[in-house]
């Protein structure tokens, strides 16, 4: 469970977060939807403790990230944007390395890595160095890294960018599987179809604030529109960023 209360954060002269509050519950996929520059990445970086909020609180499974970062991060899987691969390591080495950092023993990390490689259909690239990987192969590697240690909370920053249809389906199945296992999945996106197809709970944000939240149906009803895309434009009051 991830809980964000009243976050504010100023980067330079910009109020990147402006009193942001929302919940992402276990057993649910929560989508953070917003135009470019809405503060999605800033919000996620604050959740995993890379940025410090000027005020407000972030809790992971009830643990305050600012006060007890080590404990809070143990229950977290992270898929960042950009991916942050090590070009000279193979996916197998890369995933095992982060599994160990997340607290798995060497033996367990190796077993978990083999498992996740199989699950994501990446046997063919598992032992090649990441240098020269396609965008999709990079994304898969980063995704495997995020879920290898079976964290109770998974945060994904724009997880579908650059994925082909097959990989998008694999990702979708994986997220649904995580949700069914009772994990809390929080991802940011600006792709409407993705959010509409996956999310139980959608948080629409713009200018560092939550504009509206609820299920896809609730949001459509609230805006009086038939599709999420139209509802989104209606709610944020401009069509800025939708094309991206």
């Amino acid at each position, binding site marked *: 469970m991830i809980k964000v209360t009243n976050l504010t954060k100023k980067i330079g002269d910009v109020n990147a977060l402006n009193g942001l509050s929302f919940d992402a519950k276990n057993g649910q996929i929560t989508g953070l939807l917003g135009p470019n520059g809405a503060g999605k990445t800033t919000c996620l970086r604050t959740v*995993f403790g890379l*940025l410090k909020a000027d005020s407000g609180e972030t809790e992971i499974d009830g643990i305050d990230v600012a006060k007890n970062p*080590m404990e809070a991060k143990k229950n977290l899987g992270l898929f960042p944007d950009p991916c*942050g*691969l090590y070009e000279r390591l193979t996916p197998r080495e890369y995933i095992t390395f982060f599994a160990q*950092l997340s607290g798995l023993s*060497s033996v367990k990390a190796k077993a978990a890595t083999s498992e996740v490689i199989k699950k994501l259909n990446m046997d063919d690239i598992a032992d090649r160095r990441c240098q020269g990987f396609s965008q999709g192969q990079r994304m898969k590697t980063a995704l495997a890294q995020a879920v290898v240690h079976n964290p109770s909370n998974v945060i994904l920053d724009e997880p579908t960018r650059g994925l082909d249809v097959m990989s998008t389906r694999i990702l979708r199945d994986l997220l649904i599987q995580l949700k069914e296992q009772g994990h809390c999945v929080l991802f940011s996106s600006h792709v409407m179809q993705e959010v509409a197809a996956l999310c139980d709970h959608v948080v629409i944000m713009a200018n560092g604030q939550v504009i509206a939240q609820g299920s896809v149906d609730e949001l459509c009803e609230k805006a009086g529109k038939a599709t999420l895309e139209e509802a989104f434009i209606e709610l944020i009051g401009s069509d800025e960023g939708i094309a991206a």
Partner: protein
Amino acid sequence: MINLLKVLYKKEIIDASRDKRSVMAGLYYAIGTPIAMCLLLSVLLQQLTSPEGLKITIVNAEQAPSLVAHLNANEIQSTNDKNDELLKSITLNISDDYQKNMREGRPATVTLIADKSNDKLGKHINRIEKALASYNAEVASLRLISRGIDPSIMRTLAVETHDEATPDSKGGMFLGIATLSIILTVFYAAMNLAIDTSAGERERNSLSLLLSHPLSSLQIVLAKSAAIASFSMLGLVIILIVSKITYGLVPWQQLGFSITITPTFMLFCFAVCLPIALMSASLQVFVSFMAKSFKEAQSYVTMVLFIPMSLSMITTYDIATDIIQWVPIAAQQYALIEFIKGNPLPVPQLVLSTLITLILFSVFSFLSSRMLKSEKVVFGL
């Protein structure tokens, strides 16, 4: 804590060792320096031990055949061939009344004409002046003897010098340069790796991912420093082995001293340089993180490495040894020199400087780990 450090260290080593070009760039220094130095030393030694022939223009040579013969015996020859490569623009003018004055026992004038501001001529002029002085003394002694006077009456002082230098301790300057090259390896062998693993890691965005995991930034910094230091020590081992082989080929006997790299010295050097390697690694990581980009880090690290280099230079050229011999790097290098010379080790200096080196390592590591908590540093803002 220890386990995580091991995981991080292992990853750094694998990652760095696959960066073959960076590894090799560092190791070329370790392999190349002793070889280049030995070639230079061999050339230098040859010049020092066999004085090159010197040719000058002597005007009126026929007036002073015995003086010319004396100069010839000192390998200073007269030539009229303007295209002779050995001909220096020095002229010795023997006066017309030379023979007359000589016969009558009066000072006979010889004029040495040369440009004394020309540095290249300096040592040649000295050689000629010395040869003239010895000829002067010789003839004067003969004149005294012919008048029945003991020529030793002209000597008021009998200076005797007892040289206490052992063959090994004579090569001070060469030893300084040799140890300088060894110490610098510790700084330069892993420089590229140090920048790559810090500034490079940030630029590739993997640093922020690393920091999002449940580990402390100090663990990251320590693992990185340890990995960099390992490569520095690899460079050190290589330069010691290459030095041992190449120094064995230099014709030391011509100079009456030698630099021999013994296995004991290699062990001693390894132990003395280990703290320096750690300090150097943590310093380079610190500077790389302070820089905002990879390129900036490259310039800064190169600049900062000038400090240890100058400390080492001061020892090499024996400037201000009293104070400087307590300062890290200079003190360790001094100890290495004394070890090769076979002199007693400067134990208090060595212990204190090693301690300071380790304290600096802790300070730099701590500062780097503090910096990694700043979002400005992590995202290079």
